[in-house]
């Protein structure tokens, strides 16, 4: 049984020496497990269900969190600065905008883009229909928006940029002509649909050059950050700079809310993992039971092994290998089942975004469950193995 090990010992060092005893132990363990197949299969089944529960619930939680992050998306990274009507400020002046720019011109807040917007409402006419929409005046649309069709100009000088919702309602595309508040404009770009909630609501808006507006000041300013954290930092900086003497502006920022939402989904994921963990614990108890039964049944055999000179450590190895094999087999089956289950759900539920499911972070839950399965096997097997290995052979043989 140890034949092929001999060479390894000679060429290998301490590491091979440590592994040496495991090979015969695993061989013996595998044969012992085959002795009572039904029991072994049931124990493996228990572990695989536990692993399935952990992996599947973990992945579900993760997909939910990923989907939420996707949906919340930009709002966490945007700060909308608007004039504070309570203190009599009707619009943002050039000084205010300069103040905002000054406040965020700091690497510590991620140097976000500041996009001031004029705002009005009006009728937008397409070829055959019309709709009521927000009309914004913007100079640098590329800093805050993305186009689906056409190209966003660096400096918006002429023509109209229309939101995805308006474009759909009116059947418009880039190059078409649109009537905005009575004047005909050429559509230079159509914005990509935003899946996120934003007070600016670009989907239902059209964007004209600033020159189309004769207003005194801006209706609001968008501050576009890279991340939720920098957005919050930017908001704080703006409050400090612009609202230092007088509450001139209101800030609308969702970073804190996004944090809370993310926190909720983290909690949900943990909760789901915990649910899965319970079934894994149950599986562990079943391994414990199987190993205890099997060591009690084989008490004499273990006593014989000890009597003929097999060390306690080697007996322990055999029994741990048995539990570990059950755990590993269960973990492998459970992981495979999870992949099948998740794939089946994705196929059956069109609403689930496949990209979210094949996200690499889900693999982490698979690996986690796999590791847990093997770990549960070994931990549950440890006590019976230790107990059996430490029994005095004279007692074990007597029975």
């Amino acid at each position, binding site marked *: *049984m*140890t*034949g092929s*090990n*001999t060479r390894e*010992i000679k060429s290998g060092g301490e590491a091979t*020496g440590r592994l*040496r*005893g495991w090979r*015969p*132990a695993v061989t*013996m363990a595998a*044969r*012992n497990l*085959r*002795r009572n197949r039904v029991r072994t299969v049931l124990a493996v089944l228990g572990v695989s269900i536990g692993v399935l529960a952990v992996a599947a619930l973990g992945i579900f939680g993760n997909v939910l969190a990923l989907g939420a992050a996707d949906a919340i998306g930009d709002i966490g990274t945007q700060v909308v600065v608007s004039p504070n009507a309570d203190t009599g400020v009707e619009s943002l002046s050039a000084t205010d905008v300069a103040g905002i720019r000054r406040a965020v011109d700091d690497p510590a807040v991620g140097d976000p883009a500041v996009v001031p917007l004029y705002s009005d409402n009006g009728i937008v006419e397409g070829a055959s229909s019309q709709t009521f929409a927000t009309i914004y005046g913007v100079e640098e649309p590329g800093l805050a928006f993305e186009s689906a069709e056409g190209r966003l100009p660096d400096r918006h000088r002429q023509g109209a940029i229309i939101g995805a919702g308006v474009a759909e309602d009116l059947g418009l595309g880039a190059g078409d002509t649109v009537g905005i508040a009575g004047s005909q404009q050429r559509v230079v770009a159509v914005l990509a649909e935003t899946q996120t909630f934003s007070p600016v609501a670009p989907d239902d808006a059209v964007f004209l050059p600033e020159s189309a507006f004769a207003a005194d000041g801006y209706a609001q300013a968008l501050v576009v950050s890279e991340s939720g954290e920098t957005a919050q930092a930017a908001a704080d900086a703006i409050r400090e700079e612009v609202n230092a003497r007088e509450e001139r502006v209101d800030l609308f920022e969702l970073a804190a809310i996004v944090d809370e939402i993310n926190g909720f989904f983290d909690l949900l994921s943990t909760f789901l993992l915990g649910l899965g963990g319970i079934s894994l614990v149950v599986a562990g108890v079943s391994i414990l039971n199987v190993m205890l039964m099997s060591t009690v049944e084989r008490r*004499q*055999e273990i006593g*014989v*092994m*000890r*009597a*003929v*000179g*097999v*060390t*306690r*450590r*080697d007996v322990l*190895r055999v029994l741990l290998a048995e539990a570990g094999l059950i755990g590993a087999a269960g973990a492998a089956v459970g992981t495979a089942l999870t992949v099948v289950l998740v794939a089946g759900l994705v196929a059956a539920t069109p609403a689930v975004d496949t990209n979210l499911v094949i996200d690499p972070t889900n693999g982490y839950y698979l690996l986690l469950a796999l590791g847990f399965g093997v770990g549960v096997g070994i931990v549950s097997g440890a006590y019976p193995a230790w107990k059996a290995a*430490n029994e*005095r*052979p*004279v007692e074990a*043989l*007597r029975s």
Partner: protein
Amino acid sequence: MTRDTADDEAEWSDAEGDAAVWGDAADDGEGWSDVADDADHLNGNGARDDDAGDDDGVHDRIVRDDYGVALRGVMKRYPSGGGDPVVALNDVDFAVRPGEFVAVVGPSGSGKSTLLNVLGLLDDPTGGRRLLDGTDVTNLSVGERTQARKESIGFVFQDFHLLPTLTAVENVSLPTAFDPGDATDRAADLLSRFGLGDRLDHEPGELSGGQKQRVAIARSLINEPAVLLADEPTGNLDTETGESILAEFERVKEEGVAVIAVTHDSLVEEYADRVIELRDGILKDGIADETDPLEDITSDRNADAALAPGER
């Protein structure tokens, strides 16, 4: 293996073997305390008595060292619930030479199994000293005892006690299964010598009682032990098979192994060189009458050639 031994430190033993009692023995020429000086593969374990070096009974000492296994004044008491402890072995003196086949008989409860367990390092005596192959093994750690059992003691049980999941050849090599090196060839050789060359890959379930006991004997010999301990070796066999097993013991004995069989079977007594009776924990004539202890025990231990392959 040394690492395993070192790690197996926990001590189950409650033995209180008192080396000092025998340490003085050098003066009366018995020289018991001296045997530990030859200890190499086992720890001398504090049993050494430097005074023994003054012993001029060199002649005697050689004789004592030649015992395969010996007990001196061994006591074994078991605690019993509340009352006086049960004395299973009472001041037992017992020694078996290499190449000697000793049968221990006695009624049930006389302490036979205890004697075998103490001899086989499965249990520790509560008093007295124990020697194995010339080494004091009275007080060993769990790991040391395991190691000593593997190296020097072979067990044959009434119920054979083969592992059902292992083939005959794997059962024979079980004691060495976790060691470096492959004992399969030696195991196969041993099985062939016991006439089981065509049963190497059979599992115990496919073997008859006599065959199983032969496998068990082969297993007990895989490490060339000094002592073979048999507990009712013929107890589960019919007379004819029992005789053939006893014939195997004779061959083992001729290889220089000290064979000790605990038995109820009168057949075993016929094959034994000596029959010793154990009654109520007291052993009579445990050490053979030594008119000339040096005779014919010189180099039998190395006489492997005594058994030619296939010879029955």
